[in-house]
């Protein structure tokens, strides 16, 4: 079943089409959400919200909708809302400094990865500034084209290219000069 068939099924309100889309995009969206929020529990909530919105808008989808762009746009907006809410909560809590994520082996991501190289890579990604991390995840991990990412984030393609370049440079710096992974990105 291809994407067009899934969209036709969603527009007809078929649960089977929803299940197919959920199976196809669940992992990619969850990975993006975990790495953007750095919290599995929040990522699960936002994953549910993303698919709830798909379900609720199923009948209104245009026949030529690109599901990956649609779903990642929703997920991106949910991450922004969550980030803003987090900032307000932090301020109400007395401007407590944010904990350095990636420095704690007991972090949720730490529990998920099983090798030093993977941990180093996860930490390098976590150390990227959110705008760069987001572009690196969408292009590098999800394989979306920079033009698609520009559409998802509501930015000009030039801005995406700039972020992509800076993400690569920051990633190389974060991985260190001597690691094998850094040689691939420098």
């Amino acid at each position, binding site marked *: 079943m291809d994407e067009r068939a899934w969209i036709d099924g*969603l527009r*007809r*309100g*078929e*649960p089977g*089409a*929803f*299940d197919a889309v*959920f199976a196809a995009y*669940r*992992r990619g969206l*969850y*990975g993006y959400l*975990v*790495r953007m929020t750095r919290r599995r529990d929040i*990522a*699960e909530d936002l*994953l*549910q919200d993303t*698919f*709830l919105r*798909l*379900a*609720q*808008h*199923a*009948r*209104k989808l245009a026949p030529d909708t690109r599901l990956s762009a649609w779903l990642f746009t929703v997920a991106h907006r949910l991450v922004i809302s969550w980030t803003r809410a987090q900032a307000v909560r932090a301020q109400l809590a007395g401007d407590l400094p944010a904990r350095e994520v990636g420095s704690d082996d007991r972090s949720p991501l730490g529990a*998920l*990865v*099983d090798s030093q*190289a*993977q941990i180093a*890579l*996860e930490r390098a*990604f976590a150390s990227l500034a959110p705008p760069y991390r987001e572009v*690196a995840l969408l*292009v*590098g*991990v999800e*394989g979306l084209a*920079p033009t698609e990412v520009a559409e998802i984030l509501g930015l000009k393609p030039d801005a995406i*290219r700039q972020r*992509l*370049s800076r*993400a*690569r440079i920051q*990633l190389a710096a974060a*991985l260190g000069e001597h690691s094998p*992974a850094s040689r*691939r*990105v420098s």
Partner: protein
Amino acid sequence: MTDHDDVANLNEVVRGLPALDVEPTTAEQIARRARNDVGRGPSPLRFVEPAIAAILAAGYLAWAVIKVIESLGG
């Protein structure tokens, strides 16, 4: 370095990232909740809260205007 090189380098480096997935039971819960909403559209209850807030705000505004008129009149 070109855009293409940036993309190629990123693609190469992220190969080392572990694939993340939600727990199967959680995934099934999420799918079940969302599946029930397929084609139903957003709940009409989402209009209730803004409507109540609008009514309260309008009532308060009307009360304030009446008070101002009363104080000016007399």
